[in-house]
């Protein structure tokens, strides 16, 4: 028996509590440290950065067939005359703008509920050059320069304005009124 200075039995009792490995606190601290490193890495190298339409047009050659996210505002809402079914796919054709630069878009699938004129959207896809799937189609007020953005996903980047008399976003984005 191990006796302390005061004569008490100091021999550890066995299994008073369920055993808990001593390295657990170290592991939790390591997980916290790794989370911080991961966060810093994510913030420093975040690859998801939306290219504004004017920037995407300027960098068209460098981008080539690379998939990226394009930011701009539709210059009109998607009407039935812009929707076409080719084969098994539905295509919606529209034009977006940013700072006065226009990009024609051929989007596969149905646009989301909030898709509307002046509400910024983020499109996922790549640049294409040449005829669009709907031949003979001319984008109303669009770029119509042979280049078009083939999108397969539309996300809506809603603004932070909830006022009744909000400024028409089209004005801010340099679009035709």
């Amino acid at each position, binding site marked *: 028996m191990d006796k302390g200075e005061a004569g008490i039995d100091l021999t550890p009792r066995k299994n008073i509590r369920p055993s808990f490995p001593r390295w657990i606190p170290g592991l939790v601290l390591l997980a916290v440290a790794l989370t911080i490193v991961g*966060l810093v890495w994510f913030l420093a190298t*975040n690859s998801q950065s939306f290219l504004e339409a004017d920037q995407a047009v300027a960098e068209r050659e460098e981008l080539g067939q690379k998939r990226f996210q394009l930011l701009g505002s539709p210059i009109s809402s998607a009407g039935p005359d812009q929707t076409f079914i080719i084969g098994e796919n539905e295509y919606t054709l529209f034009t977006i703008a940013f700072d006065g630069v226009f990009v024609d878009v051929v989007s596969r699938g149905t646009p989301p509920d909030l898709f509307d004129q002046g509400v910024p959207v983020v499109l996922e896809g790549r640049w294409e050059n040449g005829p669009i799937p709907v031949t003979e189609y001319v984008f109303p007020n669009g770029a119509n320069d042979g280049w078009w953005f083939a999108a397969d996903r539309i996300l809506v980047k809603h603004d932070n304005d909830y*006022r009744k008399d909000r400024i028409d976003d089209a004005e801010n984005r340099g679009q035709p009124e």
Partner: protein
Amino acid sequence: MKIKFKEVKEGRFNATSSRSTRFLGFCLALGIPTLILFAFVFSPKDDTMEDAVRLLYIHVPVAIFSYVAFGITAIGSICYLWKQSRWWDTTAHASAEIGVIFSALTLITGSIWGRPTWNTWWEWGDVRLVTTLVMFLMFVGYLALRQVPAQPQIRAKRAAIVGIIGTINIPIVNRSVEWWENSTLHQQSSLTDGNLEDLTLFTWFLGTLILGIAYLWLMIHRFRVGWLASEHEALGYGAAIEERQAEAGIQTAIASEYREEGEIE
């Protein structure tokens, strides 16, 4: 004025209640139905977002109070390291637990709101979403660390360090929509830009007030639970020492100390 033990025994008060929590609870009982009424009936729908805007009145307040809760954890942690006081450690722990609940709700309600507005539940590359998730996970780690058996002082010190580190992320989460505007679908602050008005603004304010009261109510109760837990733990230590003393048939300086503090009789 304190509640009486007799009132707890008779079931008129909960064990962690007091007159202040009763008052806050009464405010919540009135405030929550009022908030629902304003959110769903009186406030207008948005021109673009339509009725989905009604999620703003729950999502934004829980997000604000998750920041507040983790902020209080940081203050509690700093004060614990400075004063070594159990009061501050209990405060930090209580607030972290509530903050984890609120930040989980921020992620859940945000995801539910994101589907009809952004057309996605979640985006892994989105800075606001990912930094909020990291904030949540950091404080889940904080709570996990507190579950690791250790001497109360060591446990509190470890937790305080993690609590302070975790809080560094809060300004990053909050400012991410400004600093990386083109790396998030999340909108910038409507309030600071003055983009809320009339009943929309009022309902947002009401939601924030109600969530503030809920935070305070939960905080008082959770603090007292934490206090009771540490008392209970101290009683356990005292009882264990008493048991050893009885076996050895002697008294020690440690046991006398516990007696003086009233933790054993």
